[in-house]
Structure formats: C-alpha cells, structure tokens
C-alpha cells in the first residue's frame, strides 16, 4: 500500500480508524521506504523490523477488539539518545557499543501506553553534541533536500527520517536547538517543550538543566498530538512540573485574531542569510494577515547567550558523561588499573567534539575558575530568563529565524567549532530561559533548501506557539513539499 509513509500522524490515525489500512501496512511501507532511501539518507542507525511488525499486528488485533487509543499501532522513529526497553541506545557513540536499554524512558512509556510502536533509532551527533550530525560515530546522515548537505543536528537523523518519508514522525531532543535547528534544515516541524513539561527520565543526559524531549513531525497538529501524549509531571524526574496539561489540539485555530507577537530586534541582525531573513519577514506578514498584532521587543542579553550556553552545557556534560567508564556497560578497553582502564576506554570511546566539551566543562568548573565561568554564566542565564519574562509581559509569542542560514554543506564547518557554535545563536536562548519553541517551515532558500520560522512562547504556554504555528502553516503550503529522492 504505497504512499502511507508520507502521511501525517493524524491522517494515519484517521485511516486506521476507518479501516483503510492496518498498522502492519504502515510498518511494511515504512520499512520499504527505509530500504529504498536510507542508503542515501542514513537517517537510521538501527531498525526494529521484526519486533515492530509483531507489535503492529498486535495493535491491529486490538483495534478489531475496539481499542481506540489515539496512537494505537502508529510507528515512530526515536533519536538514539532515548532509552527504549530492549533496544540499543548508543547515543551516536562508540562508547555505548553493545549497550541495550533495560528500561523505557518515561516519554517512551507514555507513548507506548497510547499504543505507539517504536520502529527504529535515528542518528545523531554523539551525545547530542553538535549541529550537523557529523559528530556521530555511527555513520553519515544526509539532508534529504540536498544529499551534499547536513540535516542539522543533533537530532539530524530524526529530521531526515521525517523529511525523507522514512518515518511518520520522530522524537528528538533539544538542549540548545537540537530539535528546532534540524527541523528547520529539513523542512519539518520541531517542538521544544518548556523545561519540565516532558519528563527527562530515560533521556541520556547531555546538559541536565537544558535538555528536553520534543516531537519532530510533518505538521503542527502532529506535534501537538505527540506532546499531548508525553507531557506532564513524572515523579521520577524532579525537574518535571506539576502544571496541568491543556488539550493542545483545542488551541489549533485558523486565525491569529487577538494574538500579540513580538519581534526581537536582536534576532534580526547582520550575518543572517538574506534569503532566510526574507522568508521569515514574509512569514511575519502572513501572520499579520491572519490577524496577529506585532510589537517590537528587545532581548538585550542575547549577545551573551552562546558563551553562557557553552559554559553551562559543557559543565553539566563533563559530569553527566563521567559514568561512561567501561565498568558497568558499553565498551571497555582494558588497562593496568581502573584509572588506566578509564583513560583508555574514554580515549577510544569518545569522539573529538565530546572530548572538547568534556575538557571545556571540566575547566569551567575547576577550582579557581568556577566563579569566573560557571557562576557568572548562571548569573547571565538569570538575566536572559528575565529578558524573556519582560518580553512576554507584552506579547503571547515571539517570532524569529531558527538558524541564520540554511543547511551547511557536509564538512563545511567541521573544522571550525566556533563558527558552528555561533549557528546556535537563535535557539540556545529558549533552553537557557526554559521556555518553549517551535520551528515550522516558512520557505526555501537558494537551491531549494528549507527555511524555518521559530515561534517562542512563555514557559508552559505551548498552546500559544502551537496556535501561531498551526494558523501560519495552514495558510501556507511549505510543509506539504517533499524532497525528490528518486533521482
């Protein structure tokens, strides 16, 4: 039953409900698409064919028995950083070779309760550190819109799978833009929930105070649907918050009447690709036409965001990644004594970017440097959060570009980490402030490379950004375009 692999989740759910296809058909179609295209794209690192088919058949039987769970039998792709019981979880690293998860992440468990099937694991920058997926030890992922370009990162495999029709939807994680940026590069929808909205239990930590799990989908309704299933307090994650989860689909409307949107002058700056800026400006006009009112706002501490992010994130990472030592799981290189074994295991197991960030993080926490770096970064972080609090006192959401440029060529920035870090300028602030952000397709630049519009909302106001994203998306056709992978 060809064509199923390009449907959205809600269309798929409708077809399943009407009996027009089965879950088994879906899995078979997706597996066929993966077989046909993933050799070029490289989105997946592991596909769960037999088990996914078995679960799909179970779901089909349950549906016949009257089971109406919204995600029953719907296959999803999962970033290789999230623990799914009995599946590998290598985090794009050699050091977790052979590790099989003994448990489900809470987000996974909640999706499983809704009937979802976990089709396979997508490629990523090692331990989510990177913006191109080039830092994976498990292979290269290419942008389905231009195979010479990166899909973005770190959730590059998830974005590429959705864009290439190899997944209906996928899960990513976003620490400094890792859902929104690849969504922008690959022309799909990416949602980073507010910090504390989705449990991090089972998300292999990069930077604990910044990480969030987010959906990567073909449209905004699908993002709302997945967020609905995952959101809410989890007693196993102390940072998850006891704030009621609204019905997100209820916020999806076709107009923006009464919505006040902010345009931060610090996000429309020299250095942004003119075609990106043109696309975003056009999206602003479209939102105005849909009834939104615009205000110019200022987020004055934006220039310090990148430095702040790379201090906080690497500090936390240096501790979070200490557990990969070869003692209890994963790869081990034997040594003379435990310390020698650690050194050899970690030297062989981690890639360059991970080592760079561990060293950076270790440095900023070191005695004598802590106050100058880590403590100061935390203070600036408070100022950045304050910027957004002030801004949101006067608007319901903020519109910005997601990334200053379209997708990079493979290898283009691999030797220039600083340039690469600067590409995160528009996305890291949402993580530092703990607010929510959405990337939706808003046009194409150059030779047909997707451009994303970022919609930022106040903490725990995902309904605001979903509403803006939905109304905008439904009034345009950018999200309906597909890359041509046949040639």
């Amino acid at each position, binding site marked *: 039953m060809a064509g199923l692999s390009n449907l959205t989740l809600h269309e798929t759910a409708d077809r399943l409900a009407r009996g027009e296809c089965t879950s088994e058909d879906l899995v078979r179609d997706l597996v066929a698409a993966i077989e046909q295209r993933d050799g070029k794209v490289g989105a997946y690192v592991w596909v769960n064919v037999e088990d996914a088919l078995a679960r799909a058949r179970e779901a089909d039987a349950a549906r016949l028995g009257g089971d109406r769970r919204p995600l029953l039998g719907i296959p999803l792709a999962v970033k290789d*950083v*999230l*623990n799914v019981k009995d599946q590998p*979880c290598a*985090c794009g690293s050699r050091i*977790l070779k052979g*590790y099989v*998860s*003994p*448990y489900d*992440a809470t987000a996974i468990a909640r999706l499983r309760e809704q009937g979802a099937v976990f089709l396979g694991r997508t490629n990523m920058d090692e331990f989510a550190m990177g913006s191109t997926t080039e830092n994976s030890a498990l292979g290269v992922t290419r942008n389905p819109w231009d195979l010479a370009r990166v899909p973005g990162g770190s959730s590059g495999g998830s974005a590429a799978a959705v864009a290439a029709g190899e997944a209906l939807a996928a899960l990513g994680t976003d620490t400094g833009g890792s859902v929104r940026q690849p969504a922008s590069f690959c022309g799909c929808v990416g949602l980073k929930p507010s910090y504390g909205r989705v449990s*991090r*239990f*089972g*998300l*292999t*930590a990069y*930077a*604990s*105070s910044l990480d969030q799990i987010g959906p990567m989908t073909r449209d905004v309704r699908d993002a709302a649907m997945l967020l609905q299933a995952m959101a809410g307090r989890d*007693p*196993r*994650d*102390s*940072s998850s918050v006891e704030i009621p989860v609204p019905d997100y689909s209820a916020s999806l409307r076709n107009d923006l009447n009464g919505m006040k949107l902010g345009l931060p002058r610090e996000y429309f700056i020299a250095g942004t690709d003119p075609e990106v800026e043109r696309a975003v400006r056009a999206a602003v006009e479209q939102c105005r036409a849909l009834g939104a009112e615009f205000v110019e706002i200022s987020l004055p501490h934006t220039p310090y965001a990148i430095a702040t992010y790379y201090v906080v994130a690497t*500090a*936390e990472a*240096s*501790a979070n990644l*200490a*557990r*990969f*030592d070869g*003692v*209890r*799981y994963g790869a081990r290189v034997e040594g003379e004594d*435990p*310390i020698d074994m*650690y050194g050899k295991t970690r030297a062989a197991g981690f890639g360059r970017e991970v080592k760079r960030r561990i060293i950076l993080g*270790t440095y900023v*926490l*070191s*005695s004598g440097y*802590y106050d100058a770096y*880590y403590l100061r970064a935390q203070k600036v972080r408070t100022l950045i959060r304050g910027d957004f609090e002030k801004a949101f006192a006067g608007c319901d959401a903020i519109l910005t570009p997601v990334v200053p440029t379209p997708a990079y060529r493979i290898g283009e920035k691999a030797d220039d980490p600083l340039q690469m870090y600067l590409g995160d300028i528009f996305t890291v602030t949402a993580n530092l402030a703990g607010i929510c952000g959405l990337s939706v397709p808003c046009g194409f630049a150059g030779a047909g490379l997707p451009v994303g519009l970022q919609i930022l909302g106040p903490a725990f106001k995902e309904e605001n950004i979903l509403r803006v994203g939905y109304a905008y998306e439904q009034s345009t056709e950018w999200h309906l375009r597909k890359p041509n992978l046949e040639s």
Partner: protein
Amino acid sequence: MKYLPTIGLEIHVQLKTRSKIFCGCPNEPGGEPNTHVCPVCLGYPGTLPNVNGEAIRLTVLTGLMIGCRINPYSKFDRKNYFYPDMPKNYQISQYDKPLCLGGSVEIEVEGRKKAVGITRIHLEEDVGKSMHFGSSSGVDFNRAGAPLMEIVTEPDIETPEEAQAFLLALRQILLYGGVSDCNLEQGNLRCDVNCSVRPEGQSELGTKIEIKNMNTFKGVFHALKHELPRQEEVLRSGGAIRQETRRWDDEKGVTEAMRSKEYAHDYRYFPEPDLMPVVLPPETVEQWRATLPELPAKRRDRLVTEYGLPDYDAGVLVADKAVADFFEETARASGNPKAASNWVMTDVLRCLGEKQTELKDAKLTSVSLAGLIRLVDQKVINVPTARELFSELFEKGGDPTELVKTKGLAQVSDTGALEAYADEAIAENPGPVADYRAGKKPALQFLVGQIMKKSRGKANPRMVQELLQRKLGGA
C-alpha cells in the same frame, strides 16, 4: 615542650530508611552482590535521582537533637571524581548549603563536662564496594545509593579519650532518634579523623593529617593514641608535618601514609541540576521537632526524679535506649521501680552480655519480668526461685505465673508445713542448735538452709527464720 593536639571528626552515618536515597531499591547493604540494584543506582544512561524524603527527615531530626540550625533552603551538589565503586563517577552530596548547621554534643571525660561543636550535617549517597579476587576485581553496588549522613565537628576535641567519648555520645543520640542502627560491624558508622599538634603557646594550628575510614571507636582511639605522639615526635626532632591522608592499620597498630594532599582532588562541586533545592518550611521542621525523643541526658534526670533511682543507676540504664525503655516498661508494669532497676542492671545486662545479644532479640519481655517481680513482691516465690525462673524466661520466654504453677515453685508459706520442716531440722542438728543457743548467731542460717533444702527451695526464708527464732528462743 608540651604539644597540644587538635582533633576534628567527620562521621558518616548510614540512615535507617527502607529504600535508598535516590531510588526505590531496598536500603539493605549486604546480601548477594548486586541484588539490591536498579538502573538508577547503577548510574545507567538517562536515569535520574529522586530524593527520599525520609532521609531528609532523619537528617533534620539528627540536627534537631543536637541543636543545629535547620537550613530553610538547602541543595544538592555533584562531587566529581572517578572511582570504580561510584556508578556515576560523581557523588550527589551537599556542598555549600547543607541541611543542618551548628549545634553541639555534650561529653564527659574524667568528670569534666564539655560541649563539642558541630559544624554541619549534610546528606549524600553511599558508594559501592570494590572487591578484589586474585587477578580480577569486582564491584558490589548493593550499598551504592544508601543514604549517608555526614556529621562534621568543630576542631574542639583535644584527646583520644574525648574523641571516643564524643563518638559514644553521638551514637547514643542517633540510636535514641532511631536515625541509624549504628551497627559498627556493618559499617553503619564510619569516621574520618583530622588531627594536628602544635606547641603550647602557639595559637596557629599545626598541619592537618587526615586518617580515613575507620569503623570502630576503638580504632579511632588507638589511631589517635598512635598518631598524635608520632606528629609530636616529628616536630620534636625538627621535622615538619606534611599535609596528607593516612590509613590506620589495626593489626600493626600504626598509621600509614595513603596519598599526599598536594595531589588533592579538585572535586569541581556544582549544583545538582537533576534535583530541586530542598525547601523546609518552618511548619514542617516544627512538626518534626514535636516527634523528637527524650534525649539521654534529660532522661537520666527524669529517671532520678520520677523513679527515685540513684544517679549512677539512671546513667547505666539510659546508656542504651532499648534498655531504658525496657526498664521503664518493667517499672510501670510491676509497680516496683527499685526492683525493676535492680533486675535490669544486674541480671538483664549480665545475660545480654553473656549471650552477646540485644534486648530486641531476647525472649524476655518487660511484661514477663514485671510478672516475676510481682510474684516476689506478693511472696508467691522467693528470690532464689525468681533467679532460676529468670534464666528460663530470658532464654525461652513464657509467662512466669504459669511457670510457677506448672513447676510447683510456689513458695511454702504454710506455717503447718514449715513447722514440720523446722521440727525435723532441730531434731537432726543438735550441734548447731546448741551453738545458736550459746549465742552463735550464724548457726541459725545453717538451720534455715536445712529447711530450705527440705522444701526444695520453696520455703519462705523470712518465715523460716522467724519460726526458728521463735522455736529456739532468743532474737
């Protein structure tokens, strides 16, 4: 020249909680290796800690017992270092905002009372245990994530005797609060000692030596008895103390250098992002304060006034909370506190000592001991019979009244029966009878003994004595 020692202690206490500090695994160190473990306490990728409220309550309770200020806002931090027994290669601990600050513990050494200041009490997770087998090593993570409370003293301790007295006093308080089992063999209490010496007259403290990880109070005492003179000797001979960590070798009776502090770890503490700060509203602290047990010092005073016990007796009884509880229950149930105190201080403590057991494991209950006391008070049995019965109650348990019945141990107070025994005894022992009548008073005891024998121990000795005196004349 005289040298003055300065000693401070860091005591790690394993808290008595049902589950570990950050996961639901049972808090039962020991058992088959790696059976009380889960992805969280093994530090698996993606797992997160979730703090056990009971561990916080027990730490605060300890703080309240020793007069600490309870921090209304405290937090957890990561202490970073690599070691195979530590699953995450960082330990979740508390750095600059511990749960409790200040406080003191009173000690008494050679009649001199003194308060040892407490700097802070914080909460952290325990690590696993490395095990070495010939050519390979293993780690048992059953203990990893056990809740550990660290109590840090001020450098107020001046002698090994004071250090030991402090540890005993602290242990007593912890047992009173039900905070820890304080079982030294099982490592429930582990102690690091910081000590230095300085010449008398010098105000600046000497260079500090840390002696790590001792789990007996005797070890602390002996280590200090060895280490302080060693430091003095180094200084006397013109040498200098190098700041270092030493290990106490119990068998050799010496301390040995472990590692020099010059290579001290930089632990790179930073706030634990996975845990929210611990905010303790005053109401919660007050609620907990209301549940505080009566502490040993106060209890001793009360035993003196309430039960009329001598100071010394009260001191012996309160030394162990279980013993003091047992005494009070027995005193109340028997209505005879003096007898209860005598039984507990002599027979109960002796049997516990002989059997190397604790009250909670003994068959003897306060109800049965009180029953025994009442039987004596009501003259149903005499004291020697009661002693015999006690041994049985201690070992096998049971109801003393029932035992007296089934064994026919009731004392003979029937004057007819006693008179018959007395007449027999007088007839059979003319010698002692003549002696007594000639004024040799001790001869009477011999005759009493004969009657006791005839009654197989059941005669009421006082009645026998009166009877004999009456029959033989004289007082």
